[in-house]
């Protein structure tokens, strides 16, 4: 394998075509081939613009990581897209819903031809096009207390991209039980918030202390195209830092965005 890579790489960069030939020659899946390539110290060319900020061992670490994304709508579509482009090796995408016309204004995976089709399946189709080395497990169901322990067995962290407070609190409690970090994002109109919940923290219970059922202000404001893209990107930045154990996390802090006034606040949640 090393000989093939040395003969076909440009320095340590392996082109897309050579990567496919490598997989075929050694009868490996795209995912397995990528693992071998990175382990042998070569970098798939698609990641060359990552390399000034992510080292080869870090790129391999992402390849060996599994992230569960609860929700494949406004936030989830962008989260999945970015995780796949980063080269996170396994993504578990969960959503019980199908696409409807009102998703088209903002959800990356919502295209005219996907109307009426399951969101989780659209995530699988998209990731297969974007990065075949990423394994996407599509689950057409919500992440809940009863299915969570089984579905999250291989996950290293969970991204909260759902659209109801009840579901968020249930996922928060599930992650605490399963000892998994959770990256929370929520949006409403021009506004958004992001925080990271590490096992043992009760951040979502603090944020939603006053909630008594129903929706937040998103019920009156709706959601435009740009807020989910932005909040999802912040969530992915947190997810990458957790996977690579680097940087400063929004643990016990919530970052709030007001895009109407272009103001960002970071608020401590511990008194």
């Amino acid at each position, binding site marked *: 394998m090393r000989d093939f890579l040395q003969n076909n790489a440009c320095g340590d960069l392996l082109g897309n075509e050579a990567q496919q030939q490598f997989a075929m020659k050694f009868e490996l899946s795209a995912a397995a081939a990528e693992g071998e390539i990175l382990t042998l110290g070569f970098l798939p060319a698609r990641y060359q613009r990552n390399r000034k900020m992510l080292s080869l061992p870090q790129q391999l670490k992402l390849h060996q990581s599994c992230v569960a994304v609860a929700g494949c709508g406004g936030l989830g579509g962008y989260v999945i897209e970015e995780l796949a482009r980063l080269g996170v090796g396994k993504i578990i995408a969960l959503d019980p819903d199908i696409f409807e016309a009102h998703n088209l204004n903002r959800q990356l995976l919502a295209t005219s031809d996907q109307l009426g089709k399951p969101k989780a399946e659209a995530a699988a189709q998209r990731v297969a096009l974007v990065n075949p080395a990423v394994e996407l497990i599509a689950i057409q169901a919500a992440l809940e207390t009863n299915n969570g322990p089984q579905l999250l067995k291989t996950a290293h962290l969970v991204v909260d991209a*759902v659209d109801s407070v009840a579901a968020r609190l249930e996922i928060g409690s599930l992650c605490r039980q399963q000892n998994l970090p959770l990256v929370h994002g929520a949006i*409403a109109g021009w506004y958004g*918030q992001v925080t990271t919940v590490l096992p043992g923290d009760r951040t979502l219970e*603090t944020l*939603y202390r006053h909630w008594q059922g129903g929706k*937040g*202000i998103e019920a009156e404001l709706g959601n435009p195209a740009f807020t989910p893209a932005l909040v999802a990107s912040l969530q992915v930045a947190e997810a990458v830092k957790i996977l690579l154990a680097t940087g400063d996390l929004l643990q016990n802090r919530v970052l*709030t965005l007001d895009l109407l006034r272009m103001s960002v606040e970071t608020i401590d949640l511990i008194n």
Partner: protein
Amino acid sequence: MKLTIKLFATFRQGRFDIAEREFAPGTTVGQIVDQLDLPREKLGILMVNSRHVQLERVMAEGETLAIFPLVGGG
């Protein structure tokens, strides 16, 4: 005592963005929320000095209280 109140997002509608107001000593965050007619079930973050506080928190002269509505969409 003089307090600064900052409202965010939809809480600004029909109220204000930021206002300096006089309150009786010992006033709590919850009392201010009620005086401003903010629905308690729609409250998100309540912030004093960059920290999230409870409704029972007693305000002190010169402090700034920021009130955010609950955000839950995805």
